[in-house]
Protein backbone atom coordinates (compact mmCIF):
# COMPACT_ATOMS: atom_id res chain seq x y z
CA UNK A 1 0.00 0.00 0.00
CA UNK A 2 1.16 3.50 -0.64
CA UNK A 3 1.82 5.30 2.63
CA UNK A 4 0.18 8.46 1.36
CA UNK A 5 -1.16 9.60 -1.93
CA UNK A 6 1.70 10.35 -4.25
CA UNK A 7 4.16 8.10 -2.44
CA UNK A 8 4.49 4.87 -4.41
CA UNK A 9 7.30 3.02 -2.70
CA UNK A 10 7.07 -0.70 -3.13
CA UNK A 11 8.30 -2.86 -0.30
CA UNK A 12 8.29 -5.85 -2.62
CA UNK A 13 11.89 -6.64 -3.33
CA UNK A 14 12.80 -9.30 -5.87
CA UNK A 15 13.51 -12.54 -4.09
CA UNK A 16 16.46 -13.24 -6.37
CA UNK A 17 18.32 -10.26 -4.98
CA UNK A 18 18.94 -12.12 -1.77
CA UNK A 19 20.99 -14.79 -3.49
CA UNK A 20 23.38 -12.23 -4.95
CA UNK A 21 23.69 -9.79 -2.13
CA UNK A 22 26.25 -10.22 0.54
CA UNK A 23 24.80 -7.97 3.18
CA UNK A 24 26.81 -8.08 6.32
CA UNK A 25 25.44 -6.49 9.41
CA UNK A 26 27.75 -6.24 12.37
CA UNK A 27 26.44 -8.31 15.24
CA UNK A 28 26.34 -6.18 18.36
CA UNK A 29 28.80 -7.36 21.02
CA UNK A 30 28.48 -6.81 24.74
CA UNK A 31 31.49 -6.34 27.00
CA UNK A 32 31.07 -6.34 30.76
CA UNK A 33 33.38 -5.00 33.45
CA UNK A 34 35.58 -7.57 35.28
CA UNK A 35 33.38 -7.31 38.40
CA UNK A 36 30.26 -8.06 36.39
CA UNK A 37 31.95 -10.92 34.57
CA UNK A 38 32.78 -12.44 37.96
CA UNK A 39 29.19 -11.89 39.08
CA UNK A 40 27.88 -13.56 35.90
CA UNK A 41 30.02 -16.62 36.60
CA UNK A 42 28.70 -16.74 40.17
CA UNK A 43 25.01 -16.41 39.26
CA UNK A 44 25.20 -18.84 36.37
CA UNK A 45 25.13 -16.38 33.52
CA UNK A 46 22.53 -13.70 34.32
CA UNK A 47 22.53 -10.62 36.52
CA UNK A 48 19.56 -10.30 38.84
CA UNK A 49 17.57 -7.20 38.03
CA UNK A 50 14.57 -5.36 39.46
CA UNK A 51 14.33 -2.37 37.15
CA UNK A 52 15.90 -1.34 33.84
CA UNK A 53 15.45 1.94 32.06
CA UNK A 54 16.48 1.93 28.41
CA UNK A 55 16.91 5.24 26.58
CA UNK A 56 16.99 5.12 22.77
CA UNK A 57 18.16 8.21 20.92
CA UNK A 58 19.73 11.49 22.07
CA UNK A 59 16.64 13.09 23.63
CA UNK A 60 15.69 10.10 25.76
CA UNK A 61 19.38 9.58 26.64
CA UNK A 62 19.69 13.25 27.60
CA UNK A 63 16.73 12.94 29.97
CA UNK A 64 18.03 9.76 31.62
CA UNK A 65 21.58 11.12 31.98
CA UNK A 66 20.35 14.37 33.52
CA UNK A 67 17.69 13.15 35.92
CA UNK A 68 18.40 9.50 36.68
CA UNK A 69 21.95 8.40 35.98
CA UNK A 70 23.84 10.73 38.23
CA UNK A 71 27.04 10.31 40.30
CA UNK A 72 25.63 7.26 42.06
CA UNK A 73 25.57 5.23 38.84
CA UNK A 74 28.62 3.61 37.25
CA UNK A 75 29.25 1.91 33.93
CA UNK A 76 29.20 -1.88 34.10
CA UNK A 77 29.19 -2.74 30.44
CA UNK A 78 29.01 -1.60 26.86
CA UNK A 79 27.36 -2.76 23.68
CA UNK A 80 29.52 -2.15 20.64
CA UNK A 81 27.67 -1.60 17.42
CA UNK A 82 30.57 -1.84 15.00
CA UNK A 83 29.78 1.51 13.46
CA UNK A 84 32.72 3.84 12.82
CA UNK A 85 32.80 5.93 15.90
CA UNK A 86 34.58 8.38 18.15
CA UNK A 87 34.64 6.32 21.29
CA UNK A 88 35.28 8.21 24.48
CA UNK A 89 34.20 5.29 26.71
CA UNK A 90 32.24 7.82 28.73
CA UNK A 91 29.60 8.86 26.19
CA UNK A 92 30.93 12.39 25.95
CA UNK A 93 31.02 12.51 22.19
CA UNK A 94 27.74 13.62 20.56
CA UNK A 95 28.13 11.02 17.84
CA UNK A 96 29.12 8.12 20.08
CA UNK A 97 27.40 5.00 18.86
CA UNK A 98 28.40 2.65 21.66
CA UNK A 99 25.62 2.00 24.15
CA UNK A 100 26.52 1.82 27.81
CA UNK A 101 24.95 -0.08 30.67
CA UNK A 102 24.99 1.59 34.10
CA UNK A 103 24.02 0.29 37.49
CA UNK A 104 23.18 2.08 40.70
CA UNK A 105 26.02 1.61 43.17
CA UNK A 106 23.66 1.58 46.13
CA UNK A 107 21.19 -0.79 44.42
CA UNK A 108 23.07 -2.85 41.83
CA UNK A 109 19.90 -4.51 40.54
CA UNK A 110 18.76 -1.21 39.05
CA UNK A 111 20.19 -0.71 35.59
CA UNK A 112 20.14 1.98 32.94
CA UNK A 113 20.99 1.37 29.29
CA UNK A 114 21.78 4.48 27.29
CA UNK A 115 21.91 4.46 23.51
CA UNK A 116 22.88 7.92 22.38
CA UNK A 117 22.33 7.25 18.73
CA UNK A 118 19.56 5.30 17.04
CA UNK A 119 20.75 1.87 16.09
CA UNK A 120 19.98 0.54 12.58
CA UNK A 121 16.93 -1.72 12.89
CA UNK A 122 18.93 -4.56 11.28
CA UNK A 123 21.21 -4.67 14.37
CA UNK A 124 18.42 -4.48 16.91
CA UNK A 125 17.95 -8.26 17.12
CA UNK A 126 21.57 -8.92 18.10
CA UNK A 127 21.57 -5.90 20.43
CA UNK A 128 18.57 -7.11 22.40
CA UNK A 129 19.79 -10.70 22.58
CA UNK A 130 23.29 -9.65 23.72
CA UNK A 131 21.84 -7.35 26.38
CA UNK A 132 19.27 -9.75 27.79
CA UNK A 133 21.51 -12.79 27.59
CA UNK A 134 23.26 -11.35 30.66
CA UNK A 135 20.24 -9.92 32.50
CA UNK A 136 17.46 -11.88 34.16
CA UNK A 137 14.23 -10.06 33.29
CA UNK A 138 11.83 -12.59 34.77
CA UNK A 139 11.22 -10.47 37.92
CA UNK A 140 12.12 -7.18 36.33
CA UNK A 141 10.24 -4.05 35.29
CA UNK A 142 11.52 -2.50 32.06
CA UNK A 143 10.96 1.08 31.00
CA UNK A 144 11.86 2.06 27.44
CA UNK A 145 12.05 5.69 26.34
CA UNK A 146 12.23 6.82 22.74
CA UNK A 147 11.39 9.75 20.50
CA UNK A 148 9.71 9.92 17.09
CA UNK A 149 8.74 12.72 14.73
CA UNK A 150 5.17 14.01 14.62
CA UNK A 151 5.31 13.61 10.85
CA UNK A 152 5.15 9.85 11.51
CA UNK A 153 2.07 10.18 13.71
CA UNK A 154 -1.32 9.56 12.11
CA UNK A 155 -4.48 10.84 13.67
CA UNK A 156 -7.91 12.20 12.87
CA UNK A 157 -6.91 15.44 14.56
CA UNK A 158 -4.19 17.35 12.68
CA UNK A 159 -0.94 17.43 14.64
CA UNK A 160 -0.93 21.22 14.43
CA UNK A 161 -3.95 21.16 16.76
CA UNK A 162 -2.13 19.01 19.31
CA UNK A 163 0.23 20.16 22.05
CA UNK A 164 3.69 19.05 20.92
CA UNK A 165 5.72 17.28 22.29
CA UNK A 166 3.29 14.61 23.45
CA UNK A 167 3.72 11.04 24.67
CA UNK A 168 2.12 7.75 23.83
CA UNK A 169 2.60 4.41 25.57
CA UNK A 170 2.65 0.74 24.65
CA UNK A 171 2.95 -2.03 27.20
CA UNK A 172 3.40 -5.78 27.34
CA UNK A 173 0.60 -8.04 28.57
CA UNK A 174 2.29 -8.56 31.93
CA UNK A 175 2.63 -4.84 32.69
CA UNK A 176 -0.49 -4.00 34.67
CA UNK A 177 0.10 -0.48 35.93
CA UNK A 178 -1.73 2.48 34.40
CA UNK A 179 0.47 4.53 32.07
CA UNK A 180 0.96 8.28 32.33
CA UNK A 181 -0.36 9.01 28.90
CA UNK A 182 -2.79 7.49 26.38
CA UNK A 183 -1.87 4.28 24.61
CA UNK A 184 -0.59 4.55 21.07
CA UNK A 185 -3.61 4.42 18.80
CA UNK A 186 -3.87 2.39 15.64
CA UNK A 187 -2.80 2.81 12.86
CA UNK A 188 0.42 4.14 14.42
CA UNK A 189 3.34 1.79 14.85
CA UNK A 190 6.82 1.99 16.31
CA UNK A 191 9.86 0.39 14.74
CA UNK A 192 13.57 0.16 15.44
CA UNK A 193 15.46 -0.82 18.58
CA UNK A 194 12.65 0.29 20.92
CA UNK A 195 10.22 -2.02 19.08
CA UNK A 196 12.66 -4.93 19.26
CA UNK A 197 13.11 -4.37 23.02
CA UNK A 198 9.37 -4.34 23.66
CA UNK A 199 8.84 -7.38 21.41
CA UNK A 200 11.49 -9.34 23.33
CA UNK A 201 9.83 -8.42 26.63
CA UNK A 202 6.39 -9.47 25.35
CA UNK A 203 7.68 -12.79 24.04
CA UNK A 204 9.44 -13.54 27.32
CA UNK A 205 6.48 -12.48 29.50
CA UNK A 206 8.31 -9.56 31.08
CA UNK A 207 6.68 -6.42 32.51
CA UNK A 208 7.64 -3.62 30.17
CA UNK A 209 6.33 -0.29 29.01
CA UNK A 210 7.49 1.95 26.17
CA UNK A 211 6.94 5.70 26.34
CA UNK A 212 7.34 7.27 22.92
CA UNK A 213 7.59 11.04 22.76
CA UNK A 214 6.50 12.72 19.52
CA UNK A 215 8.32 15.92 18.64
CA UNK A 216 8.33 18.22 15.65
CA UNK A 217 11.98 19.22 16.07
CA UNK A 218 14.74 17.34 14.31
CA UNK A 219 17.45 18.81 16.51
CA UNK A 220 17.85 18.12 20.21
CA UNK A 221 16.11 20.62 22.44
CA UNK A 222 15.21 20.99 26.07
CA UNK A 223 11.41 20.77 25.67
CA UNK A 224 11.63 17.29 24.17
CA UNK A 225 13.89 16.00 26.94
CA UNK A 226 11.68 17.60 29.61
CA UNK A 227 8.60 15.91 28.12
CA UNK A 228 9.67 12.77 30.03
CA UNK A 229 9.73 14.61 33.41
CA UNK A 230 6.32 13.35 34.65
CA UNK A 231 7.84 9.82 34.65
CA UNK A 232 10.06 10.72 37.60
CA UNK A 233 7.09 11.03 39.93
CA UNK A 234 5.23 7.97 38.75
CA UNK A 235 5.48 4.20 38.76
CA UNK A 236 7.78 2.50 37.96
CA UNK A 237 10.53 5.14 38.21
CA UNK A 238 9.56 6.50 41.61
CA UNK A 239 9.45 2.99 43.09
CA UNK A 240 13.00 2.16 42.12
CA UNK A 241 15.04 5.26 41.54
CA UNK A 242 15.90 7.90 44.05
CA UNK A 243 15.34 10.74 41.66
CA UNK A 244 17.15 13.39 43.68
CA UNK A 245 16.22 16.67 42.11
CA UNK A 246 19.25 17.63 40.10
CA UNK A 247 19.88 21.34 40.87
CA UNK A 248 22.02 21.57 37.76
CA UNK A 249 19.44 19.90 35.54
CA UNK A 250 18.71 22.93 33.35
CA UNK A 251 22.40 23.64 32.94
CA UNK A 252 23.11 20.01 32.00
CA UNK A 253 20.30 19.99 29.48
CA UNK A 254 21.55 23.18 27.83
CA UNK A 255 25.08 21.77 27.63
CA UNK A 256 23.71 18.68 25.90
CA UNK A 257 21.81 20.83 23.41
CA UNK A 258 24.99 22.82 22.71
CA UNK A 259 27.04 19.66 22.28
CA UNK A 260 24.61 18.27 19.73
CA UNK A 261 23.86 21.51 17.88
CA UNK A 262 27.37 21.42 16.45
CA UNK A 263 26.29 18.27 14.63
CA UNK A 264 23.27 19.95 13.12
CA UNK A 265 24.17 20.71 9.51
CA UNK A 266 20.91 22.39 8.63
CA UNK A 267 22.06 25.99 8.81
CA UNK A 268 25.68 25.67 7.81
Amino acid at each position, binding site marked *: *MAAYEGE*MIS*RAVEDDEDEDENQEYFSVRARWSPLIRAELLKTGGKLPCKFIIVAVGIAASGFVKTYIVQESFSIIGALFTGMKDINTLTQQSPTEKTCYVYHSESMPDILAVICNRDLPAEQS*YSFVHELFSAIDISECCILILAVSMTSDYRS*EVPVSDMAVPFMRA*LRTTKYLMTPLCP*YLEQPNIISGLQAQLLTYCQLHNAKAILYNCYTDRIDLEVTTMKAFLPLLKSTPVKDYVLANPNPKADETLLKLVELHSAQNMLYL
Partner: protein
Amino acid sequence: MFISSEDAAPKFEEKTLVLTSVSVGNVGQLSADLLISTLSMKRIGYIHHESILPMVGNDPFASVDATTCKIVTSCEVYESMLQKLVVIQQRAPFIKGKRPCFRNWLVQWIKENKFKMVVILTSTHAHERIDVQLQGSQFRYIASSQIEEQFGDVFKNLHHWNMLERRTKFPAPSPIDQPVGEVKELYLPGGGIAKSLFEDLCDAGVPTAMLLMFCAEGDNVQEAITLTDQLNTWLKLVDFHKKTLDNTLMAEPSLNDWKIPLSWKLFFGSRVDQTLFH
Protein backbone atom coordinates in the same frame (compact mmCIF):
# COMPACT_ATOMS: atom_id res chain seq x y z
CA MET B 1 11.47 -19.42 16.22
CA PHE B 2 7.80 -19.88 17.01
CA ILE B 3 6.82 -18.82 20.52
CA SER B 4 3.40 -19.91 21.68
CA SER B 5 1.29 -17.51 23.69
CA GLU B 6 -0.93 -20.34 24.94
CA ASP B 7 -0.34 -22.55 27.95
CA ALA B 8 -0.34 -25.73 25.92
CA ALA B 9 1.65 -26.14 22.72
CA PRO B 10 -0.72 -25.70 19.76
CA LYS B 11 -1.46 -28.63 17.46
CA PHE B 12 -1.34 -27.84 13.77
CA GLU B 13 -1.88 -31.24 12.24
CA GLU B 14 -4.58 -31.36 9.58
CA LYS B 15 -4.95 -27.61 9.57
CA THR B 16 -4.63 -25.29 6.60
CA LEU B 17 -1.89 -22.70 6.86
CA VAL B 18 -2.29 -19.37 5.09
CA LEU B 19 0.99 -17.52 4.59
CA THR B 20 1.36 -13.96 3.45
CA SER B 21 4.21 -12.70 1.34
CA VAL B 22 5.38 -9.08 1.62
CA SER B 23 4.72 -8.22 -2.00
CA VAL B 24 3.70 -5.34 -4.25
CA GLY B 25 0.76 -3.49 -2.75
CA ASN B 26 0.95 -5.71 0.37
CA VAL B 27 -2.09 -7.52 -1.02
CA GLY B 28 -1.38 -10.82 0.76
CA GLN B 29 -1.02 -9.06 4.09
CA LEU B 30 -4.20 -7.02 3.59
CA SER B 31 -6.01 -10.22 2.73
CA ALA B 32 -4.75 -11.88 5.93
CA ASP B 33 -6.02 -8.88 7.89
CA LEU B 34 -9.50 -9.42 6.45
CA LEU B 35 -9.44 -13.11 7.31
CA ILE B 36 -8.26 -12.55 10.88
CA SER B 37 -10.68 -9.72 11.46
CA THR B 38 -13.77 -11.39 9.96
CA LEU B 39 -13.20 -14.83 11.45
CA SER B 40 -12.23 -13.28 14.82
CA MET B 41 -9.12 -15.41 14.80
CA LYS B 42 -7.17 -15.73 18.03
CA ARG B 43 -3.47 -14.96 18.28
CA ILE B 44 -1.79 -18.16 19.43
CA GLY B 45 1.84 -17.27 19.02
CA TYR B 46 4.63 -15.17 17.61
CA ILE B 47 7.39 -15.75 15.11
CA HIS B 48 10.61 -14.21 16.36
CA HIS B 49 13.30 -14.31 13.71
CA GLU B 50 16.41 -12.24 13.09
CA SER B 51 15.40 -11.74 9.46
CA ILE B 52 12.26 -9.69 10.16
CA LEU B 53 12.54 -6.01 11.02
CA PRO B 54 10.94 -5.15 14.37
CA MET B 55 7.71 -3.23 14.89
CA VAL B 56 5.13 -2.86 17.64
CA GLY B 57 1.72 -1.28 17.77
CA ASN B 58 -1.61 -1.47 19.54
CA ASP B 59 -4.20 -4.15 18.72
CA PRO B 60 -5.06 -3.86 15.01
CA PHE B 61 -8.27 -5.85 15.49
CA ALA B 62 -9.63 -3.93 18.48
CA SER B 63 -13.04 -2.30 18.35
CA VAL B 64 -13.21 1.37 17.43
CA ASP B 65 -13.85 2.59 20.97
CA ALA B 66 -11.23 0.38 22.66
CA THR B 67 -8.99 2.14 25.14
CA THR B 68 -6.86 -0.81 26.24
CA CYS B 69 -3.47 -1.93 24.99
CA LYS B 70 -2.75 -5.30 23.44
CA ILE B 71 0.53 -5.14 21.61
CA VAL B 72 1.07 -6.52 18.15
CA THR B 73 4.53 -7.50 16.89
CA SER B 74 6.05 -7.94 13.46
CA CYS B 75 5.08 -11.55 12.80
CA GLU B 76 2.25 -13.35 14.51
CA VAL B 77 0.32 -16.60 14.19
CA TYR B 78 -3.48 -16.66 14.39
CA GLU B 79 -5.83 -19.61 14.54
CA SER B 80 -9.49 -20.35 13.94
CA MET B 81 -10.36 -23.66 15.62
CA LEU B 82 -13.72 -23.77 13.85
CA GLN B 83 -12.29 -23.37 10.37
CA LYS B 84 -9.11 -25.37 11.17
CA LEU B 85 -7.24 -22.45 9.75
CA VAL B 86 -3.92 -20.93 10.80
CA VAL B 87 -2.74 -17.59 9.41
CA ILE B 88 0.74 -16.10 9.69
CA GLN B 89 0.55 -12.32 9.44
CA GLN B 90 3.76 -10.42 8.80
CA ARG B 91 3.76 -6.68 9.39
CA ALA B 92 7.35 -5.73 8.67
CA PRO B 93 9.68 -6.38 5.74
CA PHE B 94 12.67 -8.68 5.74
CA ILE B 95 16.22 -7.57 6.29
CA LYS B 96 18.10 -7.68 2.99
CA GLY B 97 20.09 -10.84 2.60
CA LYS B 98 18.28 -12.77 5.31
CA ARG B 99 15.23 -14.07 3.48
CA PRO B 100 16.75 -17.43 2.52
CA CYS B 101 17.48 -17.97 6.23
CA PHE B 102 13.82 -17.30 7.09
CA ARG B 103 12.53 -19.47 4.26
CA ASN B 104 14.63 -22.42 5.38
CA TRP B 105 13.39 -22.08 8.93
CA LEU B 106 9.75 -21.71 7.81
CA VAL B 107 9.79 -24.76 5.54
CA GLN B 108 11.29 -26.82 8.36
CA TRP B 109 8.67 -25.54 10.82
CA ILE B 110 5.83 -26.32 8.41
CA LYS B 111 7.12 -29.86 7.88
CA GLU B 112 7.54 -30.46 11.63
CA ASN B 113 4.01 -29.31 12.37
CA LYS B 114 2.42 -31.44 9.66
CA PHE B 115 0.00 -28.90 8.21
CA LYS B 116 -2.59 -30.37 5.86
CA MET B 117 -1.81 -27.80 3.21
CA VAL B 118 -0.30 -24.37 2.75
CA VAL B 119 -1.80 -21.46 0.83
CA ILE B 120 0.49 -18.55 -0.03
CA LEU B 121 -1.19 -15.20 -0.69
CA THR B 122 0.80 -12.78 -2.78
CA SER B 123 0.74 -10.28 -5.62
CA THR B 124 2.90 -9.45 -8.59
CA HIS B 125 3.72 -6.36 -10.64
CA ALA B 126 0.95 -5.47 -13.08
CA HIS B 127 3.42 -3.72 -15.38
CA GLU B 128 5.13 -7.05 -16.12
CA ARG B 129 1.99 -8.75 -17.44
CA ILE B 130 2.14 -10.42 -20.81
CA ASP B 131 -0.53 -9.71 -23.44
CA VAL B 132 -2.97 -12.42 -22.38
CA GLN B 133 -2.92 -11.17 -18.81
CA LEU B 134 -3.84 -7.59 -19.63
CA GLN B 135 -7.56 -8.25 -19.79
CA GLY B 136 -9.96 -10.33 -17.81
CA SER B 137 -9.55 -11.54 -14.28
CA GLN B 138 -6.38 -10.34 -12.58
CA PHE B 139 -6.44 -13.33 -10.24
CA ARG B 140 -4.17 -16.34 -10.81
CA TYR B 141 -3.28 -19.51 -8.99
CA ILE B 142 -0.46 -22.04 -8.97
CA ALA B 143 -0.66 -25.37 -7.22
CA SER B 144 1.63 -28.22 -6.28
CA SER B 145 0.93 -31.61 -7.83
CA GLN B 146 -1.05 -32.82 -4.79
CA ILE B 147 -3.36 -29.79 -4.79
CA GLU B 148 -3.70 -29.88 -8.57
CA GLU B 149 -4.76 -33.50 -8.37
CA GLN B 150 -7.27 -32.86 -5.62
CA PHE B 151 -8.66 -29.53 -6.68
CA GLY B 152 -7.49 -28.88 -10.25
CA ASP B 153 -10.86 -29.72 -11.72
CA VAL B 154 -12.69 -27.58 -9.18
CA PHE B 155 -10.37 -24.63 -9.84
CA LYS B 156 -10.76 -24.75 -13.60
CA ASN B 157 -14.32 -25.86 -14.15
CA LEU B 158 -16.20 -24.76 -11.08
CA HIS B 159 -14.41 -21.59 -10.01
CA HIS B 160 -13.06 -20.75 -13.49
CA TRP B 161 -9.69 -19.88 -12.12
CA ASN B 162 -6.73 -19.19 -14.42
CA MET B 163 -3.43 -20.82 -13.70
CA LEU B 164 -0.50 -18.42 -13.76
CA GLU B 165 1.06 -18.58 -17.20
CA ARG B 166 4.65 -19.76 -17.21
CA ARG B 167 6.97 -17.62 -19.23
CA THR B 168 10.49 -16.52 -19.86
CA LYS B 169 11.76 -13.68 -17.73
CA PHE B 170 11.82 -10.02 -18.68
CA PRO B 171 12.57 -8.95 -21.32
CA ALA B 172 10.27 -11.62 -22.65
CA PRO B 173 10.80 -12.20 -26.33
CA SER B 174 7.81 -11.78 -28.64
CA PRO B 175 5.99 -14.99 -29.71
CA ILE B 176 7.80 -14.87 -33.06
CA ASP B 177 11.24 -14.67 -31.48
CA GLN B 178 10.45 -17.20 -28.77
CA PRO B 179 12.97 -20.04 -29.14
CA VAL B 180 11.24 -23.36 -29.61
CA GLY B 181 11.41 -25.73 -26.68
CA GLU B 182 12.67 -23.11 -24.25
CA VAL B 183 11.75 -23.97 -20.72
CA LYS B 184 9.32 -21.52 -19.27
CA GLU B 185 9.29 -20.88 -15.62
CA LEU B 186 7.31 -19.25 -12.86
CA TYR B 187 7.91 -15.55 -12.99
CA LEU B 188 6.63 -13.52 -10.08
CA PRO B 189 8.23 -10.06 -10.04
CA GLY B 190 7.39 -8.16 -6.89
CA GLY B 191 6.09 -11.27 -5.20
CA GLY B 192 8.56 -11.26 -2.33
CA ILE B 193 9.48 -14.71 -1.04
CA ALA B 194 6.36 -16.34 -2.52
CA LYS B 195 7.95 -18.01 -5.56
CA SER B 196 10.99 -19.41 -3.72
CA LEU B 197 8.87 -20.48 -0.78
CA PHE B 198 6.39 -22.22 -3.09
CA GLU B 199 9.23 -24.10 -4.79
CA ASP B 200 10.84 -25.04 -1.49
CA LEU B 201 7.54 -26.34 -0.11
CA CYS B 202 6.86 -28.34 -3.26
CA ASP B 203 10.34 -29.86 -3.02
CA ALA B 204 9.59 -30.76 0.59
CA GLY B 205 6.41 -32.55 -0.46
CA VAL B 206 4.03 -30.15 1.27
CA PRO B 207 0.71 -29.63 -0.58
CA THR B 208 0.93 -25.95 -1.48
CA ALA B 209 -1.09 -23.50 -3.50
CA MET B 210 -0.31 -19.91 -4.32
CA LEU B 211 -3.07 -17.37 -4.98
CA LEU B 212 -2.05 -14.05 -6.41
CA MET B 213 -3.25 -10.82 -7.95
CA PHE B 214 -1.64 -8.59 -10.54
CA CYS B 215 -1.50 -5.08 -9.13
CA ALA B 216 0.45 -1.84 -8.88
CA GLU B 217 1.20 0.09 -5.71
CA GLY B 218 -1.66 2.36 -4.73
CA ASP B 219 -4.98 1.75 -3.04
CA ASN B 220 -4.88 -2.04 -3.01
CA VAL B 221 -7.92 -2.72 -0.85
CA GLN B 222 -9.94 -3.96 -3.82
CA GLU B 223 -7.25 -6.44 -4.82
CA ALA B 224 -7.12 -7.70 -1.25
CA ILE B 225 -10.89 -8.17 -1.17
CA THR B 226 -10.85 -10.00 -4.52
CA LEU B 227 -8.04 -12.28 -3.35
CA THR B 228 -9.82 -13.05 -0.09
CA ASP B 229 -13.08 -13.67 -1.96
CA GLN B 230 -11.37 -16.21 -4.18
CA LEU B 231 -9.77 -17.94 -1.20
CA ASN B 232 -13.17 -18.03 0.46
CA THR B 233 -14.79 -19.46 -2.67
CA TRP B 234 -12.36 -22.36 -2.45
CA LEU B 235 -12.09 -22.97 1.29
CA LYS B 236 -15.61 -21.82 2.19
CA LEU B 237 -14.54 -20.02 5.33
CA VAL B 238 -17.36 -17.50 5.55
CA ASP B 239 -20.90 -17.70 4.26
CA PHE B 240 -21.96 -14.21 3.24
CA HIS B 241 -25.44 -15.08 2.07
CA LYS B 242 -28.35 -14.16 4.28
CA LYS B 243 -30.11 -17.35 5.20
CA THR B 244 -33.88 -17.37 5.34
CA LEU B 245 -36.18 -19.95 6.78
CA ASP B 246 -39.74 -19.67 5.55
CA ASN B 247 -39.04 -16.13 4.36
CA THR B 248 -37.99 -14.94 7.78
CA LEU B 249 -34.45 -14.03 8.66
CA MET B 250 -32.63 -16.52 10.85
CA ALA B 251 -31.94 -15.54 14.41
CA GLU B 252 -28.17 -15.19 14.11
CA PRO B 253 -26.93 -12.30 12.00
CA SER B 254 -24.91 -13.31 9.03
CA LEU B 255 -22.01 -11.38 7.65
CA ASN B 256 -22.49 -9.18 4.64
CA ASP B 257 -18.91 -8.40 3.95
CA TRP B 258 -15.35 -8.73 5.13
CA LYS B 259 -14.76 -6.89 8.39
CA ILE B 260 -12.28 -4.06 7.93
CA PRO B 261 -9.81 -3.95 10.85
CA LEU B 262 -9.04 -0.82 12.86
CA SER B 263 -5.48 -0.76 11.52
CA TRP B 264 -6.81 0.20 8.08
CA LYS B 265 -7.72 3.67 9.34
CA LEU B 266 -5.93 6.62 7.74
CA PHE B 267 -4.22 4.54 5.07
CA PHE B 268 -2.89 7.59 3.31
CA GLY B 269 -1.76 9.52 6.37
CA SER B 270 -3.41 11.98 8.71
CA ARG B 271 -6.15 14.26 7.53
CA VAL B 272 -4.73 17.26 5.73
CA ASP B 273 -4.50 20.29 7.95
CA GLN B 274 -7.02 22.66 6.40
CA THR B 275 -5.19 25.73 7.72
CA LEU B 276 -2.68 25.12 4.94
CA PHE B 277 -5.25 26.45 2.51
CA HIS B 278 -6.21 29.59 4.38
